[in-house]
């Protein structure tokens, strides 16, 4: 179970739509080892592609430092799929940098964006139920 405040969902959807036609990406922070997200950091996609993403390293650094100042940690990454479902691709699984992270996916396939979340560890994908909170 992953608790995501509604305002973060809105921020993630807005960033995904603003990134079109490319994939958009960002980082999420919350309490260490927690099951809740508190902050979404929209980041640049240096791949600038509709099928690939690469989090801008400078944005990652700023997000990491900001999370640390708030007593939180970066606990995952969000990215959008512009035409496919909100499920990790083979590339997502191959390049997942941290088995402890949450991997959130926003799909822009339908008129209304959708959000799903996963763990990716040792090549295995496990979906995590998202609970949108106030």
């Amino acid at each position: 179970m992953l608790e995501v405040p509604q305002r973060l969902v809105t921020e993630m959807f807005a960033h995904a739509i603003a990134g079109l036609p490319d994939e958009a990406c960002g980082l999420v922070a919350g309490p260490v080892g927690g099951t809740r997200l508190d902050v979404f950091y929209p980041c640049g996609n240096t791949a600038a592609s509709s099928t690939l993403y690469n989090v801008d390293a400078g944005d990652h650094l700023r997000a990491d430092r900001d999370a640390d100042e708030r007593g939180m940690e970066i606990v995952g990454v969000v990215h959008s799929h512009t035409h496919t479902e909100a499920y990790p691709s083979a590339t997502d699984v191959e390049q997942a940098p941290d088995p402890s992270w949450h991997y959130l996916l926003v799909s822009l396939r339908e008129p209304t964006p959708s959000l799903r979340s996963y763990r990716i560890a040792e090549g295995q994908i496990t979906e995590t139920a998202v609970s949108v909170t106030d």
Partner: protein
Amino acid sequence: MAVEIRLPTILRPHAGGETTVAAEGATVGELFADLTSQFPGMKGQLLNADGSLHRFVNVYVNDEDIRYLEQLDTKVAGTDQISILPAVAGG
């Protein structure tokens, strides 16, 4: 001199769970040599077999990416903030 290095989550288990560790060196390369001798498990995740920086690792000295400075020869001072971050990418 001793310099503090902030570790990404994925490397912390190699350092007993610590978020920051101290290493000795006057360049990033020297810091990493000391870091990997303190925590040998980190070596393969930071460096290639030829000793160069792994392409999926980003290293910052304060606000500068060492790839835009002198790579592993980038000089460091005791007051510098060193951060190691994984490349985050996918499709």
